[in-house]
Structure formats: C-alpha cells, structure tokens
C-alpha cells in the first residue's frame, strides 16, 4: 500500500518571519491526519508545501520514502481539495473531473469509466452534465473531491474543505469523507481550525501553534492528555488553577491548592526528577470534570454564579472564586440550575484530574 507521508525538519521563512518551525510528522499509509491550529499556526503552509504550491526553506518532504521537494506540483500526483471548491466554472461537472485525466493523456473510454466511478463515490451520479454554478456548495465540494480522487492519488490533501458550509452540511460531509477514506483506504492530510471537526474525523490530530508542532496524538490523547496549556485550551474548554507540587504518588502528582486541599493530577510531561515538592503548578481541569456540590466543607472551591448558559445537551455555569478567577462548570440537563448571584461550591467528579499540570 502506498501513501505514507513524512515531514522531516520542515521550516519555512517568509522574509525574516519563521512561519513553520522545524516540523516533524510521519503519516502512515491509509491514515487520516488533521493539522489543527488557529490561523497563522502554519498548518496551511505545511499543506501547501506538500502540494507543491509553497516550497520549504529547509527540511524534506517524503511520499513513500521518496523526496518530493524538487518535484513540481503537477508531477507530484497528489489530490487536493481547496476551501472554495475551485471548480472550473466554464466546464461541466464531467469535464471538471475529466481535466486531470486529459492532462495525463488517458483514453476517452477510460475517462468515461473513471468519471462514472468518481461520481459514484461522491454519490452524484446524475450530475455530469451540470455546470458548477448550478450546484449547491456541498455538491460543488463533492465534485471537487471527485476531481481530486479520479486519478487515484496516493494522498489526498484537504485545505479547510468544509469551512464554507453550514453546520448540518458540514457534519454530513465529515461523515462522507470518513466513509470515502475507509472505502478507498486513502491517506488524508486534512487542515482545519475547527477542533470538533478534527476530533470527529481523524485517526490522529497534529496540533500546531505559531509554526510549532504542539502535540501529535489520537483525538482521545489530544483531549484527555493535552501536552501543554495551549493544546488544553485550544481543544475544548479548560479551567486553570494555580497550585504547588506537594509530592508524587507513584506516577500521579499530588498538588496542593492554596486553600490547603490536595488533589491528584495526571502529570503529563512533568517528571518527579524535574519537579520537586514546592514547584509552582498550573493545573488544567475540564469543565465537565467539575460539578456543583451541596456541601462546601470538602469542596475544591466555591464561588458566586455569574451566569449560566443553556446549550441544549448541557448547561455551563461560570463561577467567580474568592481569588477573582473564573471557573466554568458543566451541569447535567436534569441537575438544578443555580441562580446567578448565589454562592455555590464545586468539586471534582473524578479522583484523578485527567488533564494536566505544568510548571508555572
């Protein structure tokens, strides 16, 4: 099977600005990897370099072990789907899909068969004679996908392909691309700034910020064991608490909160050797790991309810603690909703805080 992709020490300078800082990433054949980050994180630049539309200032790009840095984009034989569909407006759907085949000199009979196949994969069999302008956004993106797949590229590159679609259609297209990925066993490199999308569709997520790789891992790893504060904050919501390191219980860290309470924390990158007792810490706790509790005696903390926001499947409440920090707590659909202005206590729902702590 082909389609393995490697970034090896890839860097990109624009003038003196380093947009991509020494990125290493190995993607297995048949793997679906998302490059996730805010704008300016370098994720699109990485994809453009893979496509051949940008050139790395240093480092190497490998597809199936061969360097492609010196190969022009039109000879790389990779598939690409852009954010804005980029269908050729003067060609019919069938002519659009035929385009990569005609430039490769594929015979007309072969073209017809492949176009029919590609249209079947994206479930738009009867649309061959339409012009792109006559299609909806979702349909246009499916055709762009068909055009990118019709020449059987080993790797499919996708640059925020669903960002322009409304939420319902976006979810539908996410399921669709997962189905196609499994059906064709494709390697997909998918750029997105939408963390929910990245978690939903990928085998692994590569989180980038300011041109640097922050963490590479499965969606579960990224969410439950973020490597640093940025990842914790970017993937879902998080509360930060300050504490001091009290000691180690085997591999679990015991942190001492300012009010004297001790909690057990997953230490992530911290090691006992590097973090002796007394080290100042920043502890990240997901809102859904906190709960409002009746009894304030043994609680993690307490605060005044600022506001509660109803979000359908859950309600989030923001509390302001005595130290002035805001803490977000998720309460279940059936739990009583605290009144704004009331004073409530909150506690952990779990024994060990599964998120992380870092030296502050």
């Amino acid at each position, binding site marked *: 099977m082909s389609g393995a992709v490697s970034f090896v020490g890839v860097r990109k300078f624009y003038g003196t600005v380093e947009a991509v800082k020494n990125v290493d990433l190995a993607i297995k054949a048949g793997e679906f990897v998302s490059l996730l980050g805010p704008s300016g994180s370098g994720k699109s630049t990485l994809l453009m370099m893979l496509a*051949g*539309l940008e050139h790395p200032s240093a480092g190497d790009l490998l597809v199936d072990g061969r360097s492609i840095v010196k190969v022009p984009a039109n000879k790389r034989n990779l598939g690409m789907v*852009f954010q804005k569909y*980029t269908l*050729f407006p003067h060609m019919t759907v069938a002519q659009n899909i035929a*385009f*990569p085949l005609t*430039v*490769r000199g594929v015979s007309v009979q072969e073209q017809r068969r492949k176009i029919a196949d590609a249209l079947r994969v994206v479930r738009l069999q009867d649309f061959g004679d339409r012009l792109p302008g006559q299609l909806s956004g979702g349909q246009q993106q499916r055709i762009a996908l068909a055009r*990118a797949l019709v020449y059987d590229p080993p790797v499919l590159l996708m640059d925020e392909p669903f960002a322009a679609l409304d939420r319902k259609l976006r979810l539908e297209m996410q399921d669709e691309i997962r189905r196609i990925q499994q059906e064709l066993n494709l390697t997909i490199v998918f750029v997105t700034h939408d963390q929910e999308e990245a978690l939903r569709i990928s085998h692994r997520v590569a989180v980038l910020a300011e041109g640097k790789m922050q963490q590479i891992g499965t969606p579960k790893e990224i969410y439950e064991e973020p490597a640093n504060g940025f990842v914790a904050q970017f993937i879902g919501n998080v509360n930060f608490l300050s504490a001091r390191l009290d000691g180690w219980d085997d591999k679990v860290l015991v942190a001492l909160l300012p009010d004297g309470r001790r909690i057990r924390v997953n230490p992530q990158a911290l090691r006992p050797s590097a973090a002796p007792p007394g080290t100042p810490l920043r502890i990240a706790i997901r809102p859904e790991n906190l709960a409002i509790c009746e009894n304030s005696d043994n609680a993690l903390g307490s605060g005044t309810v600022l506001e509660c926001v109803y979000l359908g499947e859950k309600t989030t409440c923001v509390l302001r603690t005595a130290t002035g920090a805001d803490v977000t707590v998720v309460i279940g659909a059936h739990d009583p909703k605290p009144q704004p202005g009331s004073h409530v206590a909150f506690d952990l729902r779990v024994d060990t805080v599964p998120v992380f702590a870092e030296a502050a």
Partner: protein
Amino acid sequence: METTPARMLSGFEWLMLALAIAVAAFLILPTLIIVPMSFGTDGYLNFPPRGFTFRWYGEFFNDGDWLRAAWFSLKVGVLTTVVSVVLGTAAALALTRSRVPFGGLMQLVIIMPMILPQIVVAIALLLFYQQLGMVGSIAAFVASHACLAIPFVLFSVSAILKRYDVDLDAAAYVCGADRFTIFRRITLPIIWPGIASGALFSFLISFDEAVISFFLSGVSDKAIARKFFEDVELNVTPVLAAVATLLTLATILVLAATAFLKSDRK
C-alpha cells in the same frame, strides 16, 4: 424568486422618465438625421430630404477611392485588433497577477494616449513617423491605433481578472496541468468575454478614429475618416450621408454584439 407587484409610476418617476427620454433623444437624434438624408434625391445634403433613392449607396460601392479607403481602414482595424488584444491581455495579466515594479506607473503610461488630447497625440505621431518615413504606412496606423485601443483591452480583461480566483490555477496545477495548459484550458476561456469585448472596441476605435488618421494618411493609402474629411471640404454629396449611415450601422452592430457577449457571460 419574488416578483414585485406591478404598480403605477409616481409623478416623480414620470418626470424622471421623460427627462431620460429627452436626454437620449438629444444624444441620438443628430446622428439619426443623417440617415434619411442619405436616401434623398437631391444632389446635395438637404433636410428634410425629397424623394427616395439608393443612388448614393450605389455611388459609394462604385467609387474606387471610397472602396480603397474602406478596405485600408478595414485592414488597419483588423491588425490593430490583433495587436491590441495580444498586448492588452498580456499587460492585464502582468499588472493583476504579478508584482510588477512600478505597476501603477506602468498602467498610467499605458492609458496615457487615451487621456491626452488626441490632436497632441496625432501631431506627435506625425512628427515621429515623418522621421522614419513611415507616414501613410499600415504599420504606422496599426501602431498608433493600438496605443488608443490597448487601454480598452486592458480594462475589459482586468475587470474579469480581478474577480478571477487564482486558486483555480493552483487547482489545475495540482491536477497535473503545466503552465501552458492552465492558460489555454482554464485562464483563457474564463477571461475570453473580456478579450472579446476588448477586441470589438479595438476594432471600432481604429475604424472610427479620425484625428490620427487625418494626419497619418498618405496620398494613396488613406483611412476612410480621412477620405471623409476630404470630401466634406471638396465634394459634398449625399454619398457622405450614405457612408455615415453605413458606419453608424456597423458601429451599432458591433456594440450589440458586445452587449450580447456580456449578457451571455452572466
């Protein structure tokens, strides 16, 4: 689509409509008056004309001088169109697509002949081509008319290029196309309406152009506009009205073709 229900025009709208019609009539009527004059039987220009005859059209088509001038203007027009389309499109691509040093200044230089008084341009060109001994040559005409026509091609092609999504070219490139194929199969078909309307305008500008043609015409190789000037001065007959009518008709046809192209694009 919702349709607006039909309703009566208000007094103000009636007034505006009447004003618009009056302005249009003011602009068009003097041109149209020449049409009935070309069919009058009198041997001089007369309004209102008396009688009805095609005689003056017949004289035009039998007059070697007129036909030579028309043929000369036609050749100049076609060559001017070709030159302007190629150079104007290239300039539009360069100015919108890449970072040309002094791009703004360059654009200004290109459209300069359009802004300068035509008589100034004409005299400058006359002196220039006199030095080269090229007065009356087709090359001098084509080069001079192209100066006037290139800005129109530049504008009409740039207008489309500014809305052109360059990611289309990137997509075609990743699909496996080389630069030439991208230009031929993607860029050219998309900017084609701009090129076509630029071409029609180029031809009209060259064919109808009078001032430069007056100065650059030779004794035997003269543009139709120059022949017109000469006959107005020396030989006023309704043939002039017939020629004017034919020119007006040709112009209307070309403009109608442009309008058709534009509606087709939508």
